[in-house]
């Protein structure tokens, strides 16, 4: 018996990059986050070989959940081919051997920055959202220890006041993305900077969503079939972006969230933000048989 027979061979890095103790901590914090929907759980947040603010929180969760059979999709602003999405996808696959996909329907694990795909996610899928700032109270209370206490007390008066002020000043709620939302009737969370268009997709969704902020070291979660209600006054309805009538100039897809592309003549044209949905629409139009999942929005209306 020698040391070498008792131990594993030296390897330059652990499977899935993170070592077992880091993964164990993240698993525990994810369980806690699922147990108290919308409540931010602090975690150590290890450094990973990517800069902070570039999806390191989402990456740590993905690295913890991944195994060689997990099919992974990575998107940034809706697009699979965005430079950072490509970089994260390559890294995930390199350190885990997991297969990758662009098709939402084929993915087991979707890591995303700022979008939820347009096709409905299923119970067997997990969505990991990258979160730059996990604290919805930051605009009204930059101090994290005070904000933590406010969550404990469900002290959200200032949050509501902010909405009141916006309506008084601008005639409407001016929050763009990251629309603060009440989870399970208890914790206000930021859904990460997804557009307002995507927030209703989280409400009573079939899939699990894990939101992870690497730089700020917080994980929160929306478990399947959980209420997610944007903060709105009873008599001022929630409004998603007015994209329901727009048509993608590339694919002809209509009724989804779009990227606006300014034109030389001063006008704008639009392309669908969920790039793979656009690709599938084109394929179908070209006569290739293409499988589409049911979409959350139909004819530009949330179904």
């Amino acid at each position, binding site marked *: 018996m020698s040391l070498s027979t008792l131990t594993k061979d030296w390897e330059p890095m652990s499977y899935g990059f993170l070592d077992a103790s880091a993964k164990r901590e993240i698993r525990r914090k994810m369980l806690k986050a699922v147990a108290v929907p919308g409540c931010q759980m602090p975690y150590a947040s290890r450094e990973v*070989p990517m800069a902070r603010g570039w999806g390191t929180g989402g990456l740590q969760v993905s690295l913890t959940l991944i195994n060689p059979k997990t099919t992974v999709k990575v998107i940034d*602003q809706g697009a699979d081919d965005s*430079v950072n999405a490509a970089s994260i996808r390559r890294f995930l696959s390199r350190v885990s051997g997991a297969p990758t996909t662009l098709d939402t329907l084929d993915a087991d694990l979707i890591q995303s920055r700022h*979008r939820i795909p347009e096709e409905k996610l299923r119970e067997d899928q997990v969505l990991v959202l990258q979160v730059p700032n996990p604290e919805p109270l930051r605009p009204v209370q930059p101090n994290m220890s005070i904000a933590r206490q406010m969550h404990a007390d469900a002290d959200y008066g200032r949050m509501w006041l902010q909405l009141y002020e916006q309506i008084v000043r601008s005639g409407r709620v001016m929050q*763009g*993305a990251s629309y603060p939302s009440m989870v399970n009737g208890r914790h206000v969370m930021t859904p990460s*900077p997804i557009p307002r268009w995507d927030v209703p997709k989280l409400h009573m969704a079939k899939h699990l969503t894990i939101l992870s902020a690497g730089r700020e070291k917080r994980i929160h979660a929306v478990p399947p079939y959980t209420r997610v209600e944007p903060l709105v006054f009873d008599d001022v309805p929630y409004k998603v*972006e007015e994209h329901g009538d727009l048509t993608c100039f590339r694919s002809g897809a209509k009724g989804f969230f779009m990227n606006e592309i300014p034109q030389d003549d001063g006008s704008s044209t639009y392309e669908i933000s969920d*790039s793979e949905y656009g690709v599938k629409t*084109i394929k179908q139009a070209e006569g290739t048989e293409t499988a589409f999942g049911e979409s959350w929005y139909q004819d530009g209306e949330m179904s």
Partner: protein
Amino acid sequence: MAYVATRGGERAIEQSERLFRSAMGEITEDRVAEIKKAMPYLIDRVMGEASLYDEDLAALALAQTGGELFEAVLVLRAWRTTQPRLHVAEPIGQDELFTHRRISAAFKDIPGGQVLGPTLDYSHRVLATEVLNGSTYAPEKVDAADKPSPAYQPSVAVWQAENDLLDLPERDETRPEDIPDVTREPLLFPSKRAHTLQSLARAETGGALALGYAAMRGYGQAHPTVNELRLAEAEITVTHPKGTQFSAGRVKVSQAEVVSKKGEKLELGFAATMGWNEVKCISAATLDLNSKGAEKGSATEEEFYLYHTEGVESSGFCIHFKLPHYVTFQSSLDAMRNAKAKKSPKPEPAE
């Protein structure tokens, strides 16, 4: 297919990295060794901020990143975090530090004496341009003192405590392996003392200086006097599973104690880091000195300075603004246009 036009992402990022690396050229063991030899203070700074003491790895990180400091520290931290923690060394007292330089601004002379050691403090900062004309800059010979100063020195603060000038912090008897480790657990506030000192030890030098300097200029309540500054080597004493204690070598450390008068006593601020980095230690100790009772949101409040001197986080967040943000931008644009439309008077349909 219409979408192919947008699919240049993967190739582009690959090539941009190649472009950066090809400008660096080949990285060899020799280059790494040369960096290590030529720039010990840079190596020290990087090791301190990375909280990883390994001169070779630090030199490699610098070589690999072309001296982009934030990147070098990140590479080291990402490597460090996956390494197993084999052992926790024994705590070490100030009087056990093998001291190269030790000065106090509080007293003209102190027990053990002032030891200037190696420093550029009193040098004339003149660029040695002759080197570029082919001459070699040869350092002058050091004349050793007749009587070498003692390698181990007592602590100034201990003398002050004995003379009832200050109260030393209560001795923390936590066993070494139970000391909270900020790299393995989240930093929460009010922060644990160990987390505060560890975070300061890892702080980005420029950030610690900026906030520390703000406090020194008057945005803090306490004006620091450097009670004791040390550049030293610390013995790493570890315990064999069979119980034998032995030295695993020495590491360079620096530490600063600053004091300020509060009532009839002196108040103490402390910081230490791996490697020799005087500016960071004095700045960080000044922040520590000012942090008690600091107003929420002020530069000397613990939460404020610990978050904002974390170099990997701050630099990462800063450069992340280069990432596309068109979804968030689109979302804001929609709200702006809609609000504007509401304000512009539209002709009301006739009833």
